[in-house]
C-alpha cells in the first residue's frame, strides 16, 4: 500500500540471500525449518559476488549464505552482517561422467583421456582456489594446466562435465549427490579448507526470525542435512 | 524482321477492368485517353510490373507474357523484357545524382561516362549532373527519367506522359529528337498522353482508351476525322456533339430536327430520313450575330436564340458557351479580338448562327444515346 521498501519490511517472509550452489541443501533445510516453526522463508539465489554487492549497497535481506567465507568477512567488516552465524566447509571432488573410468587419485587427472578438466573460477570461487591447490599439492598442476577450463562457478564446472564438454570436473561434493556420474573426494589435506558462511544481516527488519533461522542451521537435524549434502559444520556463533 | 509489339491483356483491379488489345510496329504508338482510362496500367502490364489475369504479350516474336486457359504460362522477368520505361512519377533513385541515375544501366559499359554526358546534354541538363533528384525541378527530374530509360538502349520504349512537366519549346525540341532516335534505333515507342497536340505530333498511330478498353485505333487524323462513336469524338476533343433526327435530305445537304430546332447541315452524310444521327458542330463555325447588323449571307442559316453560359480564354482563341433555346450548350470559338464590343456576361441573351458547313455527322456504328 505504501512504498515497496515498507511493504517488504512488514512482510513476514524471511528473505535469505544465498549462493546458487547452496540451493539444494537450503531448500531441504527450509522444509525442515518450516515444519518446526511458524516462520516462512524465501530465497534469493544468485552468485555470491552479486549478493555481496547487493547487501553492500543497501539491499534489505535477513540472512546471507555465501559460497565464500571471504565475502562474508568483507561484509561483516563493513558492518553489514552481525556476528551471529555459522561456518561450514565443503569437500572438493573430481567428478567424472558415468561413461568415463572414475579416478582414484588427483594424479590420475594427468591421464590423456582427460582432455579438458573443468573447475570453478580460480580467483573468485573457493572451490576453484581449492582445486588449484589440490593440483599443486599433487604436483600435477603444470601438466594439466593447459587442459583446465575455468567455469564461472562450481555449478557450471559440473555442467561442463555433465554435458560432455569436459571430461572431468573439480567441483563440490555438495552438488554431485543427485548426478549420474561418479566422483572421487579429494583428501582434505590437499587444499585449504573450503569455507562457506551464513550470517544474519544487521539491516534485517526481521532480526528475530533471522536469528531463529540461523540457530536452526546448527540443530542436529539441519547438520545432518548439511552432511548428507557434503557440507560440514565448522563453527557456529549462536544468537543467544 | 521489323520490330513489332502485340498486346492482349485483361486484368481486374478492384472495380476497374483493364481489357486492352492492340499491336504496334516500328512506330510511335500513342495511348490516348482520359485520366484513369488505364494507360499506365497497360504500360505496367507490358513492362511486367502488373500481371494480367489473362492475355499475351509478344515483342519481335518473343513471348514476354502468356497466360491463358489451357496454355503454357510464360512470364519473362522484367529485366529481360528489354523495355525502357519512363514512369509517370519518374521514380528517380533518390540516393543517386542525375548522372548516376542516367548511368544506372550502363555503368559497367565502356565509355559509360561519355554516354551519360551525351544524354545530359541532349536533355539540356549538362550543368545539373551532380544534382540529386530533390535538388532538381519537376521538369528536370522528368528529363533525367527520360535519359535514364534511353541510356539503357531498350527495344521498346514506354513513355508515360514523358513531357507533361516541360514547357512548350523544350517539349518540341525533345519530341523531334525522340522521333529521330526512334527511327535511328528502329524502336517501338508507346507514348501515353492526354494532350491531343502531342498525340498528333508524335503518333504514327493512336489508340483511344476508355475505362480500360481500346475504343478505336488508327492514324490520329483518321480517328479525329471519323471517330467511331461519340465517346471517341469527345475524347478526341470534339465539341458540340448532339443527337438529332434526319427530317429531310436535299442536294444541298441534310435537314435535322434537333430537339425542336431545325438544323440545315452541309454534310452529305449517308443517313436516311427518319433516322437518328450523332452530329457535331465545329465551334469555329458558330458565329455570334451582332444584334443591330443585318444578317449577312454567311450567317443566314440556323439562327438560334441563346444565352451566355460561360466564357473562357486561351492564348490564340477565346471560347464562349451558350445555352440555346432547346436547352443544349453550344460552344463557339473565335479570335481573342473578335466580339469585343459585345456584352458577353453570363446570362446575356444573344443569337447564334450555326453555319451549315460546320455541322458534321459522325459516321458511326449504331451509337448508344447519351
Amino acid at each position: 500500500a505504501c512504498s515497496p521498501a515498507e511493504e517488504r519490511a512488514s512482510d513476514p517472509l524471511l528473505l535469505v540471500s544465498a549462493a546458487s550452489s547452496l540451493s539444494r541443501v537450503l531448500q531441504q533445510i527450509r522444509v525442515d525449518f518450516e515444519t518446526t516453526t511458524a516462520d516462512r522463508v524465501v530465497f534469493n539465489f544468485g552468485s555470491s559476488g552479486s549478493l555481496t554487492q547487493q547487501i553492500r549497497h543497501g539491499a534489505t535481506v535477513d540472512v546471507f549464505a555465501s559460497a565464500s567465507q571471504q565475502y562474508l568477512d568483507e561484509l561483516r567488516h563493513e558492518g553489514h552482517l552481525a556476528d551471529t552465524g555459522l561456518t561450514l566447509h565443503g569437500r572438493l571432488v573430481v567428478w567424472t561422467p558415468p561413461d568415463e573410468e572414475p579416478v582414484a587419485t588427483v594424479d590420475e587427472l594427468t591421464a590423456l583421456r582427460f582432455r579438458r578438466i573443468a573447475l570453478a573460477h580460480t580467483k573468485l570461487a573457493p572451490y576453484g582456489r581449492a582445486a588449484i591447490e589440490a593440483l599443486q599439492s599433487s604436483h600435477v598442476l603444470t601438466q594439466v594446466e593447459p587442459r583446465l577450463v575455468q567455469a564461472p562457478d562450481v555449478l557450471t564446472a559440473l555442467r561442463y562435465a555433465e554435458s560432455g564438454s569436459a571430461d572431468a570436473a573439480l567441483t563440490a561434493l555438495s552438488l554431485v549427490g543427485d548426478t549420474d556420474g561418479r566422483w572421487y573426494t579429494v583428501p582434505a589435506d590437499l587444499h585449504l579448507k573450503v569455507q562457506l558462511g551464513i550470517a544474519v544481516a544487521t539491516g534485517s527488519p526481521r532480526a528475530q526470525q533471522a536469528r531463529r533461522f540461523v540457530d536452526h542451521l546448527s540443530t542436529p537435524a539441519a547438520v545432518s542435512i548439511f552432511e548428507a549434502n557434503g557440507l560440514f559444520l565448522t563453527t557456529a556463533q549462536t544468537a543467544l | 524482321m521489323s520490330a513489332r509489339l502485340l498486346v492482349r491483356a485483361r486484368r481486374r483491379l478492384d472495380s476497374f477492368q483493364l481489357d486492352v488489345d492492340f499491336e504496334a510496329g516500328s512506330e510511335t504508338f500513342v495511348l490516348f485517353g482520359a485520366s484513369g482510362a488505364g494507360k499506365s496500367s497497360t504500360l505496367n502490364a507490358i513492362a511486367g510490373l502488373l500481371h494480367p489475369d489473362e492475355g499475351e504479350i509478344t515483342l519481335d516474336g518473343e513471348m514476354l507474357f502468356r497466360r491463358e486457359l489451357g496454355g503454357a504460362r510464360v512470364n519473362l522477368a522484367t529485366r529481360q523484357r528489354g523495355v525502357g520505361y519512363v514512369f509517370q512519377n519518374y521514380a528517380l533513385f533518390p540516393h543517386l545524382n542525375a548522372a548516376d541515375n542516367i548511368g544506372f544501366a550502363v555503368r559497367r559499359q565502356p565509355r559509360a561516362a561519355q554516354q551519360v554526358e551525351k544524354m545530359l546534354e541532349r536533355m539540356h541538363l549538362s550543368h545539373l549532373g551532380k544534382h540529386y533528384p530533390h535538388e532538381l525541378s519537376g521538369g528536370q527530374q522528368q528529363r533525367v527519367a527520360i535519359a535514364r530509360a534511353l541510356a539503357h538502349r531498350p527495344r521498346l520504349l514506354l513513355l508515360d506522359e514523358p513531357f507533361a512537366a516541360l514547357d512548350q519549346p523544350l517539349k518540341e525540341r525533345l519530341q523531334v529528337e525522340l522521333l529521330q532516335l526512334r527511327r535511328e534505333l528502329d524502336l517501338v515507342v508507346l507514348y501515353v498522353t492526354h494532350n491531343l497536340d502531342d498525340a498528333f505530333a508524335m503518333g504514327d498511330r493512336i489508340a483511344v482508351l476508355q475505362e480500360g478498353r481500346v475504343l478505336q485505333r488508327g492514324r490520329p487524323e483518321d480517328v479525329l476525322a471519323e471517330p467511331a462513336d461519340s465517346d471517341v469524338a469527345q475524347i478526341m476533343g470534339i465539341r458540340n456533339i448532339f443527337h438529332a433526327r434526319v427530317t429531310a435530305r436535299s442536294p444541298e445537304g441534310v435537314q435535322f430536327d434537333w430537339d425542336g430546332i431545325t438544323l440545315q447541315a452541309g454534310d452529305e452524310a449517308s443517313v436516311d430520313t427518319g433516322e437518328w444521327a450523332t452530329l457535331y458542330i465545329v465551334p469555329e463555325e458558330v458565329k455570334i450575330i451582332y444584334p443591330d447588323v443585318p444578317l449577312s449571307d454567311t450567317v443566314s442559316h440556323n439562327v438560334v436564340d441563346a444565352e451566355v453560359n460561360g466564357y473562357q480564354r486561351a492564348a490564340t482563341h477565346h471560347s464562349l458557351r451558350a445555352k440555346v433555346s432547346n436547352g443544349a450548350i453550344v460552344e463557339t470559338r473565335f479570335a481573342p479580338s473578335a466580339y469585343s464590343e459585345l456584352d458577353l456576361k453570363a446570362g446575356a441573351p444573344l443569337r447564334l448562327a450555326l453555319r451549315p458547313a460546320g455541322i458534321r455527322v459522325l459516321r458511326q456504328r449504331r451509337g448508344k444515346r447519351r
Partner: protein
Amino acid sequence: MWAPLLLSLQVTVAATLLIICIGGGLAVWLARREPRGRALIETAIHLPLVLPPSVVGYYLLIVLGRRGPVSTWLEWDLLFSWPAAVIAATVVGMPLMFQASRAAIASVNPDLEQVARTLGASELGVLWRVTLPLARRGVIAGVVLSATRALGEFGATLMVAGNIPGRTQTLPLAIYDAVQSNDTDLANAMVLLMTAVGFVSLWWVRRFDIGPRPQRSGTPV
C-alpha cells in the same frame, strides 16, 4: 511457473511503455537534429548494450542503492522490488528502441511532413499523423526488440531486483534457477512458455507492421 510469467509480463509491459516514451522521444528528437554532443548522448544510450547486463546492474545498484541519489534525494528504496526490475529492463531495452526507430524516422520523406504543415498540422500532429505512421515498421521493430529484450532481461534484474520467488522472480530468473538446480524439465517447460509468449506477441505485432499500405505514393504497379 505462472507467477514468474505474470510478473514478467507485468514488468515487460511497464518497461515497454517507459521505453516507448523515453526511447521514442529521444529518437524523434535526434532523428533530424544535430545538437552539440549528440554523439555523447547516443553513446550514453547505447552503453547498456555494450556492458554485461550484470555490470549495468552493478551501476544501477549504486544509483538505486542506499547511498545513491534515488534513495537519498527521492527517498525511494526500490531495491528488490518489481519497479527495480522495470528500471533494469528499461535501461537495457532502451537502445534497441532508440536506434531502430531513429533510423526509421530519419528516413521519412520530409515532403510529406511539409505538406502536413501546410495543412495546418502542429509539430505534434505531424509527428503523430505523418511521421510515426510512415516510420511504422522501424518503430515497431524497435518496440518488438526492446520488449523482447525487456522480457528476457536477466543480469541487471538479478542485481537490482533480486531473484525472490513470488516477488521479483521473473521468468528468465526462474529459468536460470531451474537450469542451475539441474531441473531440466522445468527449465524446458519454461523455455517453451517463453517461446510461446514470444510467438504470440510477434504474431500480434505483425498485424500493425504490415499496416495498410507500403510507403510510397507512386503510380500503380
